[in-house]
């Protein structure tokens, strides 16, 4: 416990330096005076008495310095001095300071970027049931008429693969979109994803509130709650203060009504690196989107060069079969 007592004493001393310095001065002065008086009593002359007293007390300044070093936190004092000195030096050489700061900034920035990427791609795993078993499907059309490496998939293709494949226990569609989003006073863009109804089921996820999307939500006109929407845990907490009564709330996405049916689990940020959807909508929503805007023919992910309405109805026809 000794070290604790010493540290405490040093810390309090560090904070009250001025007062303690004055006290030390006073104490040492009293010492010299007492010595002078004793010398005078023993018959010395005034100046001899003082000289001898100081002689017995070698190096007044040195003693004070030793005392101060032992009393406070000298390394903090030294650190503060070094920082002041460094700042002065940098002020005298602004060019050098600028280059140094720039070098550091670039270095730190590059490191952060590389690590972020490494972390997302190699180190972190998705918070789903079997993250190691997930694969991303793409069609390689190099050499064909269309000639593309990651040719877009559509629902008929996905369903065809599902029918033929033996090695997957679930195949689901996942497309990232940005939607205009309205809910009461909130009116802004929202990052989202259109997913097939079996997506959450295939990933083995459980909702934080309400329910997640199911294959029933892929039916024309939506499932039991109309067009269903699942929101991310992040916006549930940030915008709705984790209010469980959010389930059943009506919102507007791309000028189309939808109902929040549940909240995705905490920590789940989608399955695509660097895409963090805040709202998940069923595939049926894609049909709604295209019915309203029939001229859109190609969308970033998951659509064909066919007119969207044709694609949507093709998907429906397929499902009914």
């Amino acid at each position, binding site marked *: 416990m000794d070290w604790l007592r010493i540290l405490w004493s*040093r810390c309090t001393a560090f904070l009250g330096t001025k007062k303690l310095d004055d006290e030390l001065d006073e104490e040492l002065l009293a010492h010299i005076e007492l*010595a002078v008086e004793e010398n005078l009593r023993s018959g010395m002359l005034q100046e001899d008495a003082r000289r001898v007293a100081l002689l017995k007390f070698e190096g*007044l300044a040195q003693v004070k310095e030793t005392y101060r070093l*032992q*009393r406070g936190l000298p390394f903090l004092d030294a650190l503060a001095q070094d920082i002041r000195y460094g700042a002065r030096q940098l002020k005298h050489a602004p060019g050098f300071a600028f280059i140094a700061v720039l070098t550091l900034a670039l270095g730190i920035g590059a490191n952060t970027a590389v690590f972020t990427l490494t972390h997302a791609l190699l180190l972190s795993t998705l918070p789903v049931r079997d993250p190691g078993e997930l694969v991303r499907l793409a069609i390689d059309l190099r050499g064909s008429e269309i000639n593309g490496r990651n040719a877009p998939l559509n629902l008929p293709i996905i369903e065809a693969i599902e029918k033929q494949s033996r090695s997957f226990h679930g195949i689901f569609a996942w497309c990232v979109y940005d939607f205009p989003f309205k809910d009461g006073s909130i009116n802004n863009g929202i990052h989202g994803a259109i997913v097939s109804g079996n997506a959450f089921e295939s990933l083995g996820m459980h909702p934080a509130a309400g329910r997640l999307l199911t294959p029933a939500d892929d039916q024309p006109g939506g499932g039991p709650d109309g067009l269903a929407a699942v929101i991310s845990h992040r916006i549930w907490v940030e915008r709705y203060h984790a209010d469980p009564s959010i389930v059943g709330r009506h919102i507007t996405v791309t000028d189309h009504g939808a109902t929040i049916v549940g909240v995705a689990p905490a920590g789940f940020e989608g399955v695509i690196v660097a895409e963090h959807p805040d709202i998940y909508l069923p595939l049926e929503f894609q049909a709604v989107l295209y019915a309203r805007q029939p001229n859109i023919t190609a969308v970033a992910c998951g659509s064909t060069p066919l007119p969207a309405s044709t694609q949507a109805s093709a998907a429906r026809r397929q499902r009914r079969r």
Partner: protein
Amino acid sequence: MGETKSDVLQGTLDLMVLKTLESMGPSHGYGIARRIEQVSNDTLSLNQGTIYPALLRLLQRGWIKAEWGVSENNRRAKYYSLSRLGKKQIERETESWERIAATMARFLTTSD
């Protein structure tokens, strides 16, 4: 004169201060320094200044306490006194010092 005086050994000053306070009761730095000089019959060359870092060391360990008081010449002076921990420390250090002294004595006699 210098040859007949020995320097104060590192670590011994603390015990001297503690022991002085035990026998004299509360006293100021000058009083402690003078007392040590007198007890040693002026055979120690004590730089009176070194008393103060030693006092601080003892204060930090909680072995002594300090209080402002009035000296015999009516000046404000800091008075030091032994704490409960300090009394225990004297026992411990006395014991260890006696052991060292005895060991040294044995070495010195066998070398003859």
